[in-house]
């Protein structure tokens, strides 16, 4: 067993976990953050993507103990002060989701893509960088549109903040 402390969605938390407990299980079972989903057992589907210290990580590939001391953001922590994150809004506005199961992982990956590639990221790059996220409902068409639109919106937000 290991005692772990970390920051999740801006709040300090601690817990005593089995050494083998995955971060995704810690989030879902210990913290009741069930927006992070489990869609496979081979780290292929990306339904469990969260941000660890600002970078997208499949939370099924990491032990909870490894995340000790980190800042974790899950889908539940993406909106702030009741305002949707621009990427969340873009998925809604572009019908980028159907059943919603892959959606949290898609949105967390999308934000990471824009953080790395910038607001003008093109659709081919988006498609390539969604390699680690599987959706069975949308055929990706509207997910790609959503991410491109969300990227632009995030870009204008970044610009405003800079000014």
């Amino acid at each position: 067993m290991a005692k772990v402390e970390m920051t999740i969605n801006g709040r300090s938390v601690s817990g005593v976990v089995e050494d083998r407990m995955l971060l995704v299980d810690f989030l879902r079972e210990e913290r009741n953050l069930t927006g992070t989903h489990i869609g496979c057992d081979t780290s292929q589907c990306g339904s469990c993507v969260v941000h660890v210290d600002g970078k997208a990580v499949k939370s099924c590939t990491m032990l909870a103990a490894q995340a000790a001391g980190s800042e974790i953001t899950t889908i539940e922590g993406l909106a702030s002060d009741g305002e949707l994150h621009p990427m969340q809004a873009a998925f809604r506005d572009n019908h980028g989701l159907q059943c919603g199961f892959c959606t949290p992982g898609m949105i967390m990956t999308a934000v990471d893509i824009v953080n790395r590639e910038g607001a003008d990221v093109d659709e081919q790059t988006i498609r390539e960088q969604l390699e680690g996220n599987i959706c069975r409902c949308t055929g990706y068409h509207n997910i790609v549109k959503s991410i491109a639109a969300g990227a632009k919106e995030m870009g204008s937000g970044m610009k405003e903040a800079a000014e």
Partner: protein
Amino acid sequence: MGIEGIGARALRKEDKRFITGKGHYTDDHKVAGMHHAAFVRSPHAHAKINGIDKSAAEDMSGVVAVLDGKQLTGDGIGNIICGWMVHSKDGSPMNMGAWSALATEYVRYVGDAAAVVIAESYEEAKAAAEAVVVDYEVLDAVVDAVEALKEGAPQLHPEAAGNLIYDWEIGDEAATDAAFDGAANVVEIDITNNRLVPNPMEPRSAVAEYDDAEDHFTLHTTSQNPHVARLVLSAFYQVAPENKLRVIAPDVGGGFGAKIYIYPEEIVCLWAAKRAGVAAIKWTADRSEAFMTDAHGRDHVTKAKMAFDADNKITGFKVETIANLGAYMSLFSSSVPTYLYATLLSGQYNIPNIHCNVKTVYTNTVPVDAYRGAGRPEATYLVERLMTTAARQLDVDPAELRRTNFVQEFPHQTPVIMAYDAGDFDATLDAAMEAADYKGFAARKAESENNGKLRGIGMSCYIEACGIAPSAAVGSLGAGVGLWESAEVRVNPVGTIEILTGSHSHGQGHETTFAQVVSDRFGLPAENVQIVHGDTDKVQFGMGTYGSRSGAVGISAIVKALDKVEAKAKKIAAHLLEASEGDIEIKDGEVLVKGTDKKLGWHEVCLGAYTAHNLPEGMEPGLKEGAFYDPTNFTFPAGCYICEVEVDPDTGVSTIQQFVAADDFGKIINPMIVEGQVHGGLAQGIGQALMEHAVYDDAGQLLSASYMDYQMPRADDLPDFVVSHHETLCPGNPLGIKGCGEAGAIGSPPAVINAITDAIGHNNLAMPASPHNVWKAIHSA
């Protein structure tokens, strides 16, 4: 959100909870005292169980029970049934083998459950399941349907000699044979429809709760049809009487057919909760279990030939199909290769004579049942590959050969049961050819050639049958249930509305589209309308969502109930406004007397219904109406898909350059959602054509049982889709809806393969057209 009626691209009401992580799926459900189940699954495709040693597992920490099939059947839990009786052509009923939710004597596929462990934690249950020692006597296995029919093949069920489930036919064989005798040309094809795994992203899950004080069960489950689940769990499996069983299907993460059926795990969790004396049991499939236990799709082998006269008109079509149904007969498995397949073999064409023979077969593989399209993709793949093959053989343009044979007049009775009610096949073909710049293809092909690439174009003109289905008609064909839908419209005293529907949404956006129908009717904002579904305690009964039936059948039930609400509201308003009922109009949230300035707010009429201070004489208070809608015919979505590919002859990689879809779905409630359905269907159909394949080795091991091995389409495997709609209204239901959920998966595989075979210049190519298979096809020419 304002007033967004029929035809509006309204954003989805349900999205906020999904994009903020507040969706509530079955595995998110937790209750006090919840235990966990882990199944002991056969590693062998076929074996006799000589004994089960549970002692080590029972002594492990957290374990409360280890249960087996003899205990399950001993407690009177019934065998799993197939709900559609199909008779062989000699009149004998289908040969259904016994299927117990936990195996009693034999296991018949890898993944078949022999026992279950109930423990306090998931980890303890999993660990103990590995400690259960099953004494298996391994038997020979057979996985291929053609092999399973051969003499000397391993036998699966004593009830099915030679592994044959039924030998069924449709159509007039003598007339069809005669058509071939007089044919100017005959075109033949041998075709395989590859086995697929549906793979909704949410794995199946169940939480069974048992209240011993009330002897009452509650099941949260990943179901497309919770009401049917309750019926079957009660009436056939004897888990609990219906009044003692509540089934809830909360947010469900995709279905595609795989979540229609009532699986062993739900039965076992309910039974085990009571037997083991625990408050609740949760089971959630990991992805490997999903591959090994979710019903698979397709897996047909077909020989067919088509006869043409000297004017290239089709005169006859003869088909022989062998369909693999796996180790047991799943709930609707018998209907898929018969009434959902052979009845669509006329395609969009005038074919005077059709005969089809279907043999279904047991093999040591996962049960096969309906997967998005269910039978109709198999029919379309056969008909549309054959049409393109014929065009090449007859040396005519594939579009012209199709046009020559299109059904032009409606209604049109095919020789295989279906009566097409409406359509315009030229319109969708024209639209697709225009959008695809069909005329410009030769120039693009030349350019590809300059780059060392092979370019091909392929089309598919599909028709399918939705609106499943007229109850009496399906009853006469062997269905064990009626396929109507129910709805209840509850108007609250303040004028807001709850719609209770037997349809179930698992990605289709019913909370939005159903609200749009109400919004349209009364001019109320969509946020004033709540859609309630997926809970047998709230909605009385319903048949659920599959076969693209929620629009054509589910919405029709809502419309019928709205008609009754409108009629009563008008009676009340006429009474209050001292006007004639015929002069009352409900518009923009107001109830008006036509041609006057007399009016009431919608909410005033609703309040009047509930205060009941001043109602017409004899009228009951309240404003709540229900309806059952039973369709009068199937509906017939149709369209044309055109795919253009570039093949690299050195690597065999096929890249889709363009994919065009022109569909006729009848009336569309929300084009944004309909387009999303098409995109998703196309992705699954292109997945089947290019990459997806459930592969067994000869011993019956499923080689493609993870996302490392089974290739799911990913974002960079697919193009942007070019989608358009061309509406002819369905005359059979009040709004003219045909259905849109499956068309993409039905129509796209032949378009892709017709394009690749066009590129490589010969027809010897089977799905999936993986780089390896295409490379082999190029080099076998």
